[in-house]
């Protein structure tokens, strides 16, 4: 008998201002807080305001399971810095109860496709806690390489913790060809 693992598929769409409640729910989860720079007890109102004023040069994606928003990913470029226009920083979070189910993979796939095929970004960068093994594995799967270790990068659960600085370079993109 086949034990078929049902592969969930997630809808990826743009994150909209009205999604603030769902984002607030994501960051109400202790694991999401642990893996990012967020602090406990998020404010729904603060997320409402933040999503209403999107950052210039940024693209925010939402991953949905049915109608439920279960993960989000941001691609932040550096407007005002022409010498960094080939690059962008990635940040993401998956709802605690949806972690380990492929949401991260779906978001990352959409992000690298967008970067490679539409946003013309040859360098994607991110920071990830050195002990966040599932996240490090995810990023490596998408071609991110560890470029360094940032010591005592952030405060987390009572102590300073290190983060890897990782990046994915796409040499095939026109900009990197002589």
């Amino acid at each position, binding site marked *: 008998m086949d034990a078929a693992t049902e592969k969930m598929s997630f809808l990826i769409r743009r994150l909209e201002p009205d999604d603030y409640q769902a984002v607030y729910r994501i960051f109400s989860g202790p694991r999401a807080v642990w893996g990012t720079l967020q602090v406990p007890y998020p404010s729904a109102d603060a997320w409402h305001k933040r999503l209403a004023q999107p950052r210039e040069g940024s693209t925010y994606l939402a991953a949905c399971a049915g109608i439920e928003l279960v993960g989000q990913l941001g691609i932040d470029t550096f407007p005002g810095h022409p010498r960094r226009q*080939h690059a962008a920083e990635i940040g993401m979070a998956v709802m605690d109860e949806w972690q380990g189910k492929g949401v991260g993979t779906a978001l990352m796939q959409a992000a690298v496709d967008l970067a490679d095929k539409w946003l013309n970004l*040859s360098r994607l960068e991110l920071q990830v806690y050195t002990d966040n093994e599932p996240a490090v594995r995810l990023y490596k799967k998408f071609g991110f390489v560890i*470029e360094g270790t*940032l010591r*005592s*990068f*952030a*405060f987390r659960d009572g102590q300073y913790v290190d983060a890897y600085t990782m990046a994915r370079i796409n040499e095939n993109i026109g900009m990197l060809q002589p």
Partner: protein
Amino acid sequence: METSSEEIKLIIRRAEPDDYESLTRLFTGPRVIWGTLQVPYPSAEFWRKRLADPTDGYYGLLACIGNEVVGELGLLTFPKAPRRRHAASLFMAVRDDWQGQGIGSALMQATVDLADKWLNLMRLELEVYTDNEPAIRLYKKFGFEVEGTLRCFAYRDGQYVDVYSMARMKPAASS
């Protein structure tokens, strides 16, 4: 006849909105552009706006000799990010015609004193082009260590170039 040598008095002070013209001039220098993320032909209006409305948590320091601004250092703290409040990033530039004369050291000394003794910062971070040897030597002199190499980080003079990511941890208090 007495020849008195005028002592060069270097002053470190805070950057004020009216300093925008001096900063524009500093950023016209090709070596400064080479060593930073700025582009040629700086706009005075750009610097005017930047100084008039600085980012929260930004400390701009200037090195001055007489009326001349010969160097600048920006220290950027993260007041809105509690989990990064112990850290700050810095970037600096010394006017082309004043490089190699200790201006960078003076700015760095003032900055680490500010960071260690007043701003209660534990971690200072910066990026520097991997081939910018004088700058790397300066940062190492002040306790910065290379933490990584960021590939194709920025575009410079027609190509993508790497930077070192460096950081300095506050030294433990000596008893």
